[in-house]
């Protein structure tokens, strides 16, 4: 059977049936995958598409989560009304994180500065207990959409799936546009891109802001899913997790972001089903990442692209 790109529309429709076959535990894992898909899509914009070694993702994630949590707990807003503000807070943080890059900071220097940004934000959550609950954490009420309480994992799933599909399609369209091509040009050769008239500075800010917006929305979903935010959720372990997702899935690949999220989030849960493996998760997890990177340096998405060219990332529209 010859595949065409309509599969990208059919797959989410098929996924709609998942609650019919999953219990709430497995549904929670699927919901967590959906959260990490957005986190990876946003992260990949800066690291994979723009080619910058920036790790401020965890800051965007935390800002989005806490923005959503604070708006629901302190202002009593329903969760669905906090999703876009959480994204906007992430976008603002993205603009701030792009400043070092605008000043010519690159590579390891940019990496360490953006890592520091994440740590700075974690400390901010700890040091503002009136807003964030500080070290004791912030309990977020059950999410609500137009008066409909998302009391089960199944309810959350449909809302999360809608958000993820919209964001992924929008990101795909953006990458297929001249903006996506500009990101690619900057990634390949920043000086050549500037010489061709691409305003690289503006695109840096745009990429970081978009990344912050998407990851901020992911953070808002995380707050709704987990229900209790703690500064420890947004530490360096989270950076490693995000990085592993895009490395395993494929740098600069939307499909890779999806595949990486599924693999990295689901693997610990698969291990959980074998009680004799309890405690050996790190060995298996670390080993699996090494194997994927050794044998598929361009990630799992490159494997799919070999199977069928429709899975290749595109920077043009039909």
């Amino acid at each position, binding site marked *: 059977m010859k595949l065409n790109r309509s599969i990208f529309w059919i797959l989410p429709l098929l996924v709609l049936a998942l609650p019919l076959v999953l*219990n*709430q*535990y*497995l549904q*929670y*894992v699927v919901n*967590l995958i959906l959260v990490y898909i957005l986190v990876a899509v946003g992260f990949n914009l800066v690291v994979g598409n723009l080619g910058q070694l920036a790790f401020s993702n965890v800051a965007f994630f935390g800002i989005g989560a806490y923005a959503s949590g604070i708006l629901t707990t302190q202002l009593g807003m329903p969760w669905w009304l906090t999703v876009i503000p959480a994204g906007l807070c992430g976008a603002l943080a993205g603009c701030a994180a792009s400043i070092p890059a605008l000043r010519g900071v690159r590579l390891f220097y940019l990496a360490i500065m953006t890592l520091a940004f994440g740590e700075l934000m974690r*400390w901010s959550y*700890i040091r503002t207990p009136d807003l964030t609950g*500080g*070290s*004791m*954490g912030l*309990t977020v009420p*059950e999410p609500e959409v137009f008066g409909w309480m998302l*009391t089960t*994992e199944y309810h959350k799933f449909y809302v999360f799936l809608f958000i993820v599909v919209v964001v992924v399609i929008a990101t795909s369209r953006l990458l297929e546009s001249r903006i996506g091509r500009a990101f690619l040009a900057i990634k390949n050769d920043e000086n050549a891109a500037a010489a061709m008239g691409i305003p690289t500075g503006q695109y840096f800010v745009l990429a970081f802001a978009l990344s912050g917006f998407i990851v901020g929305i992911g953070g808002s979903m*995380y707050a709704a*899913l*987990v*229900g*209790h935010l*703690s*500064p*420890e*959720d947004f530490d360096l*372990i989270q950076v490693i997790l995000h990085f592993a997702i895009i490395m395993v899935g494929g740098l600069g690949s939307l499909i890779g972001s999806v595949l990486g999220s599924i693999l990295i989030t689901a693997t*610990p*849960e698969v291990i*959980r089903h074998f*009680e004799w493996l*309890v*405690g*050996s*998760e*790190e060995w298996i997890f670390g080993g699996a990442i090494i194997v994927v990177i050794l044998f598929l340096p361009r990630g799992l998405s490159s494997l799919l692209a070999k199977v069928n060219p429709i899975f290749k990332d595109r920077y043009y529209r039909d």
Partner: protein
Amino acid sequence: MNVLQKSLKTAAIAITIASVSGFSAAAERGITDTSIKIGNIGPFSGKAAMFNPLNYGSVAYMRYVNDMGGVFGRKFDIVLGDTACAQAKGIAAAKKMVYDEKVFMITVNPCSGVAMAVKPTLVKEGVPWSGVSANPKITGSVGSGGTSAPPKYMFHVTPNGYFSGMTMGKFIMTKPNTKKIAIVAHTNDWARGYCDPAKDYIESQGAEVVLDTAMERGSTDATAQVLQIKSKGVDGVLGCLYQPELVILLKAAHKYKLNTPIIGALGADFGQVVQQVGNAKAVNGVFFQGHLYKDKINSPALEWGKQILLKYLTKDELPKTGDPTHFYYFGLFNGIGVVEGFRRAGRDLTRDTYIKAIETLRDFDNNISAGRVTITAEQHVGISDMYFNGLDKDGNEVIFSSWGKALN
């Protein structure tokens, strides 16, 4: 006999057998006529894996009870779940227990953030929880660190962070002429769960917390904290730190001649801390830590516990070297309380009868803890007091009931 008669006879026999063997109880999730399914969750991987002896201690006691014939003919079917001490994974572990394994209850669950994150699911599904996490918000009610009635299905048979922290404060305040205290704590809810009640108690006694400084998990040096403490001239230090960081603090305190007692919280194992500091002068008469048990863990009074741990845990579950540590006994302590609930609930076990049974614990002597366990409908934290461990000038372990007052 025709087919109809045969069918009726078979159905009648089946109904009789089901009735006799407690059909009603089997309707409750996690219970059969011969088993009670228990979810035992904790950090079996990740940076907090040092806490999993708490899980194994409970496992050992339940295996021992199984060996003795179980409770009312039911044996414990224990399912382990890894939380990695991370909220997202912890929720997955708890949901797997509730929706996949369909356990009767969840137990142990070190890591306060995880316990707080799984609480809504357990409360919603009415799944009993008996854990060891410190955050007073988990089971606390008015008088035990909370602000309202305790959650119906959640309880501590051990102390929570509120009482443990209060006891740290009480202990240091029994030291004569104590006026100024310093706190060194991690920035997580576990540490604040201990140090905030301690701070409140100290201030309520007219002393002053002159320094409340952070030491992050993973820190490899405590020079800055120790020099800060030294500059304040304090009478005592509360270290709400996990084991590696507590060891680092004690080493730095000795290096810079702090000469002030340091009181550790229950996130570190007393014996292992002493061993890892590796310098008698740095701990003798300096390091003290809350002690949950009625005597030293290697004393004849607790030999029975050691024998259970050694007999019912596998080589992989026991320490690689040496005897079972304090954390194993902490787990044992939790296991005894959980099992006592089943004994009191009787054969007709449901989650409601179990909780009602737990709420009948009054001055319950579990033969292990420093204090006796009391749980009521208004108070779901079983223990509010403990002793303190320390070393005398010759390095002998001493159990103190208050400053300078040895138990034996």
